[in-house]
């Protein structure tokens, strides 16, 4: 595997139009720079409206930065071919309700340019993995939120991605399904795959992630290993992640 960063953000800023006729601007990100290396499980942390999802969307070319540069696998984000190596689980997914679970995976697999025989091989396995094998022909309209989240996880894995982006993957999941997500992250970590995790489940983040970037108010407040985040810089004492983050969120911007 190449040593090029899987994702690299350089001076990313993003403002949204706001106000009457969109004449005002609402800054969402300000000068964010960091990179995600191959094989690491990287956490993107921060309070609500910190800009985490916006940054993820910029990485996936869903959103264009106002300024700055993004690369995926060493290529500029305008090169959509690199998205063939990325899987994305959206925080609040709404799939076409008329498709069945297997129909949806076949559809997204085709859009990821996976050969059809390979899609047919992967779909039953993925549905088995997320526990939807017995409901594979049912329309998604009949699925609960948890089932849709499970399906979202399966679609993110359809192309067996080198970079898996999980935006709040445990939202709406029961305990069994949460375990499934964390087992998956652990398994892919063992395989040397890269994962970008946006989550408020701090215990699991602490257990699974190698490094984290903490965004507060659209700015990068901390970048480093999880241990560097939990260690109190003043006393050297190790705190839980929640305590460390609360202190970081409360600290005024430098």
């Amino acid at each position, binding site marked *: 595997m190449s040593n090029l960063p899987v994702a690299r953000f350089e001076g990313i800023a993003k403002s*949204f139009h706001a106000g009457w006729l969109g004449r005002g601007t609402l800054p969402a990100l300000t000068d964010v720079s960091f990179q995600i290396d191959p094989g690491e499980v990287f956490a993107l942390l921060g309070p609500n409206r910190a800009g985490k999802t916006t940054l993820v*969307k910029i990485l*996936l*070319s*869903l*959103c*264009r930065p106002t300024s700055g540069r993004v690369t995926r696998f060493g290529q500029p984000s305008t090169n*959509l*071919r*690199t*998205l*063939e190596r*990325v899987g*994305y689980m*959206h925080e*609040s*997914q*709404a*799939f*076409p*309700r*008329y*498709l069945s679970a297997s*129909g949806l995976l076949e*559809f*997204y697999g*085709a*859009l*990821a*340019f996976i050969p059809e025989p390979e899609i047919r091989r992967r779909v039953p396995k993925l549905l088995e993995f997320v526990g939807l094998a017995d409901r594979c022909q049912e*329309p998604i309209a009949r699925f609960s939120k948890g089932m849709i989240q499970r399906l*979202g996880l399966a*679609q993110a894995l359809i192309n067996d991605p080198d970079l898996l982006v999980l935006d709040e993957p445990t939202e709406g999941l029961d305990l069994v399904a949460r375990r499934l997500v964390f087992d998956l992250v652990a398994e892919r970590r063992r395989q040397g795959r890269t994962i970008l995790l946006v989550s408020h489940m701090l215990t699991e983040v602490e257990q699974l992630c190698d490094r984290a970037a903490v965004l507060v108010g659209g700015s990068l407040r901390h970048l480093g290993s999880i241990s560097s985040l939990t260690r109190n810089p003043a006393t050297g004492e190790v705190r839980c992640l929640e305590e460390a983050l609360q202190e970081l969120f409360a600290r005024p911007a430098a």
Partner: protein
Amino acid sequence: MNLPVVILTIRWMVRDTFRQALASGIFWLMLGASLLCILFCLSAGVDGGSQLRHSGEPPEFLPKKHADLSKTTPAAQAGVEVIRGDLTLAFGALRLPLGRDAEDSVRFLQLLLAGVVADAAGVLLALIWTASFLPTFLDPNAAAVMFSKPVPRWALLLGKYLGVVAFVGLQATVFVGGTWAALGLSTGWWIPEYLWCIPALLLHFAVMYSASVLLATLTRSPVACVLGSVFFWFLCWGVDYGRHAMVAMQYLDANSSPFQGAARTMVEAAYWILPKPADFSILLQSLLHAGDHFAAIPAFDTVQHAGAFHPEMSILSSLAFAGVVFVVATRQLGHTDY
């Protein structure tokens, strides 16, 4: 992005659109409407002297417009063999005296089906019924995952557009092909020109649907798409008809026309820029040779006699409008944050 990838994307988007149409019930709704019309055609028949015209006799043997001469009694007294037949509908429950001969009556039914049921009501209903397809597809939570795949947004939008056009094309084929076959079976008159309605209807829909595509990318709102599409269709029809009326007035009496100078230029400019649904009606009537059997709308008739109706240019300029609007829609979609 290479051609096979574009073709693959379009194929999957077309397939997805058919699934959407099936699941939403619109497929069955349109098919049901077509089947009703097919049943109506199967119920039609011709009784009596349907073979009024003798072999080799020109079709104009009975005057069609002169009120006095079209009266059958004096015509019969003058030695003309006058028809004594009926057009039956609803399996004989309704009987209508044949206007001229059986072919005319069948052509009248075809003109009614193509011009009123399919070209006006059908296209408008198809625009309304399919207007929600694109906003659903562009819903942010649904589109975010799709747009994170390695396919350009323009290819996805093109695939969806072609999917809707293909769906309406299938329905138009069922409607036109079915009613043609049903009328042929029930009356014995197989008039092949009627089948030209399939491409004509599809062209009409494809051009008008491009406006719905732009509205969907701008608003992502099904309501805006439905209302906007209907309003736009009426606007275009009004401009188109207005232009022809203006030309007709000018042709008949240049001095009495209220459209002079800048007003005339503006109407002409609007006519050439916008799609031309009324021209599609004229085209459809020409394809059905309706003018040989029935009186046309006077403004349309005059504009054709005046040489101010150019079907090729009308089609090309309407397609150009659809192309430009589609390019604007893809640019808009490409610049939208999800």
